[in-house]
Each structure stands twice: as structure tokens, then as C-alpha cells.
């Protein structure tokens, strides 16, 4: 089982190798662009924040860049099973497919998280220490797994390419502007805040913001994220299983 998972992950990385230049470039450009086009202008607007906006917004940039990358890279994955009789003839179990994809997402997430943290550290000097880095990644982990599954679920329902592109845009807008990544959540209507803080991704964001501003982690929110993450894992596992066993 472990051997098959290792080989499936290797396969994903060999596929990624062909686009390695564009992948590395985009991994670097994405946090830079978000910083330049969102953080810099907004820093002139939100001047009252503590810590200062350019530090506060780093949590949003980390979250958006990591989750958007994971979402994009997972999008094509289910198609590889759906469209391939050959893949389905291989002695691979559903759990092996599933775990390999989750691990691949986590590795990609960690890579993007590291690149984004390095970029942001050089732009806003020393916003994050190594222990904060580890804590942030830990609280982000359920969201990475959730987004990886969400990508798989969306792709298994919609086959057209324009819907794929449309859903990418919607996802980017959602994680950027609906959960307080770049605009402080207390500026939204209170009814909306009560709803959105219990969304799994926003609870990860709130915890990252807390870690960066040296506050304590909300473990209840972390558990909510883990709960949602498990629900999404269950759904996508069943989608894969249905496909593998036709």
C-alpha cells in the first residue's frame, strides 16, 4: 500500500516536472502580485489595524496563495481516473488513490506556503518566525485537505472547461474577499460575520492571524475545520470509490 502511494505521488511530481519552470515562477509571482495589487493599496485604507496592515495581511496572502494553488493543481486529478480505462485496470485501491492525492496536496501546499512565507518575509521584514511558520502550517492543514477534496468534488460534477475556469475565479474571489483575507472581517455585516467565522477556511485564517499577532489559537475553530475536512474527505472518497468500482 505505502509503495503504491509513493509511486502515485512520484507520478504527480513527474507530471509537474514538465511544467516545473512555470510552476516555480507562478508560485513566486502569486504572493508577490497579491501583495502588490491588494496589500499595498489596502494598507493606505486600513491604517488603524494592530498589528499594522502590511503584517496583518500576510496571513491572508499565505492562505489565498496556498489554497488557490492546491485547488488548481487538484482540479485535473479526477479526470485522470474518469477518462482512463488503463488507470482503472491497475491494482490500486481507492484508499491508495485518495491518500496519494491528499499527500501530494499537502506537499504542494507546504511548498507554496514556504515560498509565500519567504516572499512575504522579504517584503515585510520578519513577520513570521520559524515556530510561527510551523504553527500556521498546522492550522492551515485541514483547509488544504478540504480544498483538495473540494476541487475534486467540483471537478467530478462539472466537465466543461469554461465552468472549470469560472469556478477557479469564484474560488479565488471567495477566499480573497468573503472570509476576511484582505479586508478585516469586522467591517462586514454582523449577521454575515456570525455565519462566516464557522466556515472551515475562515477559521484557519482567523487562527493564522492570531498566530502572527502572537495571540492564542482558537482550538474550537481548529476542530470545526477538522470536522469539515473529514466530511469532505468522506464525500470525495466515495466519489473516487464509485468511479474505481464503476
Amino acid at each position: 500500500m505505502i509503495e503504491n502511494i509513493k509511486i502515485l505521488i512520484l507520478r504527480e511530481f513527474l507530471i509537474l516536472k514538465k511544467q516545473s519552470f512555470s510552476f516555480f515562477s507562478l508560485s513566486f509571482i502569486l504572493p508577490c502580485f497579491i501583495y502588490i495589487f491588494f496589500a499595498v493599496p489596502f494598507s493606505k485604507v486600513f491604517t488603524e489595524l494592530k498589528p499594522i496592515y502590511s503584517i496583518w495581511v500576510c496571513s491572508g496572502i499565505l492562505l489565498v496563495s496556498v489554497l488557490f494553488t492546491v485547488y488548481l493543481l487538484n482540479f485535473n486529478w479526477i479526470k485522470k481516473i474518469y477518462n482512463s480505462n488503463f488507470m482503472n485496470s491497475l491494482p490500486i485501491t481507492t484508499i491508495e488513490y485518495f491518500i496519494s492525492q491528499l499527500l501530494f496536496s499537502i506537499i504542494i501546499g507546504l511548498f507554496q506556503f514556504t515560498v509565500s512565507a519567504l516572499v512575504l518575509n522579504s517584503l515585510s521584514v520578519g513577520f513570521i518566525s520559524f515556530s510561527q511558520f510551523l504553527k500556521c502550517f498546522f492550522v492551515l492543514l485541514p483547509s488544504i485537505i478540504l480544498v483538495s477534496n473540494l476541487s475534486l468534488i467540483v471537478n467530478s460534477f462539472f466537465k466543461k472547461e469554461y465552468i472549470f475556469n469560472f469556478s477557479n475565479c469564484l474560488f479565488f474571489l471567495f477566499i480573497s474577499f468573503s472570509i476576511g483575507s484582505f479586508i478585516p472581517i469586522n467591517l462586514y455585516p454582523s449577521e454575515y460575520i456570525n455565519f462566516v467565522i464557522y466556515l472551515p477556511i475562515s477559521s484557519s485564517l482567523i487562527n493564522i492571524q492570531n498566530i502572527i499577532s502572537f495571540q492564542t489559537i482558537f482550538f474550537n475553530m481548529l476542530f470545526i475545520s477538522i470536522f469539515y475536512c473529514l466530511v469532505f474527505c468522506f464525500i470525495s472518497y466515495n466519489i473516487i470509490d464509485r468511479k474505481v468500482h464503476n
Partner: protein
Amino acid sequence: MEASITFKSVAKKIKSETLLADLSFGVEKGTRFALVGPNGSGKSSIIKMISGIIQKDKGTIYVKGYETENKLNKIKSIIGYMPQNSEFDLDLTVYDNIYIYARLYGMDKNSLKDNIEKISRLLHFNNYLHSYPKSLSFGLKRVIMFARSVIHNPDIILLDEPTANVDPKFRSIIWNYVCNYLNKSTIFFTTNNFNDAQDYSNRIAILYNGNIKYNGTFENLVNSTRGLARYSIIFKDKIPNDFIKIISSNPKIINSSFSDNIFKFYSVDKLVCFRILKHALNSEIEDIDISNCSLEDIFKGIEIDND
């Protein structure tokens, strides 16, 4: 003889239409089994059911003694499957495409490099190992897909129309390898090419209307036709109307066809041919041709019987 594949009363519906009904047959270990049949008759579905890609609706399938219902992963590990369509990871090189899948079949990574180089030499694609599949010709892609399905020396090899639309060069490369290097494996292939089935299999089954109509060696199939032969008479000019009237009333003529100056028919009785020839000699004839029955002829016979 030990059975490699056994179908017992298997049925399969696709979109509420019966594709296979009460299908039962067996494939002995070590045979090269050809399954021929018209397009849409269910040949590919049979291969997909054996390899666990699709599920049967009724019946039982055993592969090397394991039932597909509960030992699917075990079965998948002892088969090699070549799909009908090109299925590659387009972002992987030819080498990586073979390497990854051979590893998933449990091959040792240390010996794999040598094995890939060896099979690529034998199948004449060693110069393309580091190319991407997109840049390769159709025939070469089929050869590489074939290599990918046999690299792990599986007990049972399932080839879904392996040489369909492949040029003669690559066709002979594939069949040479099958005949010379895969003697210990059971090979189950589907084809629409009757010559391939006739020349490279030692057992043939004809699938028609959801069931097996014939199953046996080609010699037995020919014998079962009781001497069916194909006759052609080529007239110098247009076929005379009198001649057409006479032969139209002969019940022993099977599947006759007229085209301008050529008259073709099948018959199991040689005397019929001589009688027809006698009538034909009333006009000037250019040539006659008598051929033994081929698999295609038998297949046409089945279609006629059912029509």
C-alpha cells in the same frame, strides 16, 4: 487444461439495452484467444469486465480461479491490459509512462531500467524513450501501449484491438513479440481484423448478438462449415440475364453477389460450383477463383444466418 478465464452466464446491459446475455465460455491457460465480432457487439466490454473496469450485471467471472466480485485487486495484479484508445500521461516521457505503471504492478525498480531498455529494443521504440507521447505516430503509440501492458510479464494479457488502424510494420512488430516472447502467458485479444485472428490465435470465438456463436480452433471452425468455399466467376462482358435467373433459383448458393462482370458466391457443395460453371460457360468467361473459407467468410455466414 487449467482455465485462465471463465465466464458463467454473464449478462451486461448498457443503458437498458442488453449487450451480453447469458454468456458462458472459457479460455485455457497459455492460449492465444481471439474474440471477433462486429462493432458494438461487446468485445471491449468483455475485456473491461475481466480487468474490473466495468462490472457485470449477472453471472460469474473467474480469472485464474479468482472471482472478480471479491478478488478484483488480486486479478488486476496478474493481468496486463491494453486499452483500445491511446491512454498516456501526456506530460510524462515514454520511459516514465512505462516506468510508473510497471512499478504499480510491483516491478522492482532496480531491474526495471534494463527491462524497459530491453523491451524498447525488441519493439523498436528505443529511440523514443525520452520523447513525449504527443509527438509520436499512432502506430508507435500502440506499440508503446502494448509494451506498457506486458512489461511486468503478466499471467494474462488483455489486448483490446491491439493493431486496429496500425500500419503493417508496427502490426508485425506487435505480433512477432506476442508469438516469440509471450508463450507462457494467456493472451486474450479482440479484433475486427480477421487475418490477425486467423494467423495469430490458436483459439477463436465469434461474438454475435450478445453471445458466442463459434468457439474453437480455426480448423474446427472451418470444419464446422462442412467445406464452405468461396467462388468467383469473372465474365468477359456483363453477366448475362439468363445466367442470373438460373442461379437465383438455386438454394445451395449462399450469399451470392453480382457486380458488373463478377459473380461471387459461397457454397458447401463443390458440385454446385461445377453446375454453375457449366451455365457460365454459355458465355465467355475470363477467370474463375476458388478459395478456402476464411474467418471473414465464416463471420459473413453468421451475419447471413441471422439476417
